[in-house]
């Protein structure tokens, strides 16, 4: 029973990792770049929700919607202002650029007087509720995380599988020039991908906020989402979620059964093993680079 309990809390935590990893994978799939700012975008989303709920006094659904919409817009603007000028440059430039964006986001939030440096709780309607089910104690906050992740996954899967835009995004990710020749508006799509990834990050932030707290450094959890993305295979959407779940469960079990200190390193040990055994991840494409 305890094992099951651990697994469930691991799954909930893993869903958060998965959602952040989903943002990485979206950007990687769409624009073939890796965004290190994803954790900080998540933090901005959580602060957006906090602003809506406490300072503006919105009802919960409106606060969530406005935070997600605001972050999507922010993502589009960000892409237009700083990412687009260096489109096509080496991937490492963009990695450094996103690290810079992360620094700026964290710096700006901590510069807000009195609010930025504190930790806040997000007053969600389902706070501190508990379901008991056949001896299991289920935290509603965690259940909401799992449910929301499942729905979001289905939506994104449908987008990439069935919609024209999703297929165009995949084409852009594979070869920008060829996609451009086929009449795909590459630049506009890249903006859209960043908007989508930011919106997903905002959702992750809003889901994570009730479990932990809202503070300027909550974005560092993004560093644990990287292993999730790698375990799942960097270019695979279901892989991101599965990778997140694997990392979450490994972490929860390692925290309980292994000595102190393994809880925080278990995800990284898992990713190192993964890179040795299957460098392309669980769902990664098995393709070799040719000349």
């Amino acid at each position: 029973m305890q094992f099951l309990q651990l697994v469930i809390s691991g799954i909930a935590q893993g869903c958060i990792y998965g959602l952040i990893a989903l943002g990485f994978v979206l950007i990687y799939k769409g624009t073939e770049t890796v965004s290190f700012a994803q954790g900080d975008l998540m933090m901005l989303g959580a602060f957006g929700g906090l602003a809506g709920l406490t300072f503006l006094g919105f009802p919960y659904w409106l606060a969530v919607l406005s935070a997600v919409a605001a972050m999507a817009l922010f993502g589009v603007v960000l892409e237009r202002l700083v990412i687009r000028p260096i489109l096509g440059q080496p991937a490492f430039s963009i990695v450094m650029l996103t690290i810079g964006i992360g620094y700026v986001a964290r710096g700006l939030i901590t510069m807000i007087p009195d609010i930025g440096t504190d930790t806040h709780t997000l007053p969600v309607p389902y706070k501190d509720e508990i379901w008991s089910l056949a001896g299991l104690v289920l935290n509603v906050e965690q259940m909401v995380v799992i449910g929301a992740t499942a729905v979001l996954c289905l939506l994104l899967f449908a987008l990439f599988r069935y919609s024209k835009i999703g297929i165009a995004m995949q084409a852009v990710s594979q070869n920008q020039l060829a996609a451009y020749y086929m009449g795909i508006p590459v630049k506009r799509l890249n903006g859209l991908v960043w908007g989508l990834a930011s919106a997903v990050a905002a959702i992750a932030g809003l889901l994570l906020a009730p479990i932990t707290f809202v503070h300027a450094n909550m974005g560092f959890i993004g560093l644990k989402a990287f292993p999730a993305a790698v375990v799942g295979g960097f270019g695979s959407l279901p892989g991101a979620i599965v990778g997140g779940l694997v990392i979450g469960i490994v972490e929860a079990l390692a925290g309980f059964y292994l000595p102190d200190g393994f809880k925080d390193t278990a995800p990284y040990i898992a990713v190192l093993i993964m890179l040795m055994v299957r460098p392309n991840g669980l769902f990664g494409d098995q393709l070799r680079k040719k000349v």
Partner: protein
Amino acid sequence: MRFIFKTRYEQDLLLAKHGGQVFWYGALLALTLAAPWLFSEYWLAQLTFVLIYGIAGLGLMLLAGFTGLFSLGHAAFLGVGAYTQAVLTNAGLSFPLALACAAGLSAAAGWVVGLPALRVKGIYLGMATLSFGFIVEEGFARWESVTGGNAGIHLKPPSMLGWTLTSGEGFYFLCLGLAVLATLGILNLLRSPTGRAFVAIRDSEISAQSMGIHLARYKTLSFALSAALAGVAGALYAHKLQFISPDQFNVLQSIDLLLMIVIGGVGSVHGAFLGAIFLISMPQVIALGKDYLPAVVGQAPGLQGLVYGVVVIIFVLFEPMGLYGRWLKIRTYLQMFPFYRKGMFKRQKSFQKSDRLK
């Protein structure tokens, strides 16, 4: 404009290509040698840090700038060097022996991390090094019997042959000597077949391989050399601070090291030191500028991070070759005056292709 007429074959082997270089690098060396008598103790300490970070930067530059492998966990090598030095010095080993052990152990760690470098590329390698960094940091914190855990560990001053180095000036000269040695070593390495192989791997792995370069050997060698330099820097860092704890070698330190070489200029030996100067002087500049800003902005804790982020974004957007690239442009402008054209250093437009499908 300067024309170099080569009259002897040995001229090709010289490190300094012409009299101007001899003069300016000589002047720089003279200035750094005279620094203890020119600057106050505080600025000398800052200069020592510049040299230490410069050595670490040289290592990362060799790896990232010349071999094209990016490490997101370089602080771990710094940490391995620092802790080895701390433990061995406290055990009574003399400085050169401890330093050699620190460099050797770091190099061994680098070799181990370099092993996956053959199989994984790009972002996956970044992840592998990042994971390694986290594991090593946690290891420092948990292996309390040796490292003292989160409480940290104190160091004795460096000593050799019954002669103990306690003064700041003496330690500065020690760092200066090692930095000069490291720089000369890297410069010579880069024009040797090994260095050429590194650059070939950076430019194209496939063509390097088809020219007969053993990818596995050279990649792990690059990792090991880079880690060894980081280890030396870590050992000096530990002696300079006289106290080390695991959180000095966390992921933020790794990112700082990366920032340093990006701002200095990836792919140039000058860049390592220019970046180190930037990294050390930036907090001072911010501290000086704080008083002139309104209190809401100036006293906010996030100011430093904000400035760092903005600077990195500006460099990546407008000056991808870093400070050294900017200097190159200014120099070219002066050399060619008045024939400098605007588009000379214009970036070529390029389209991105997937690494996954090719």
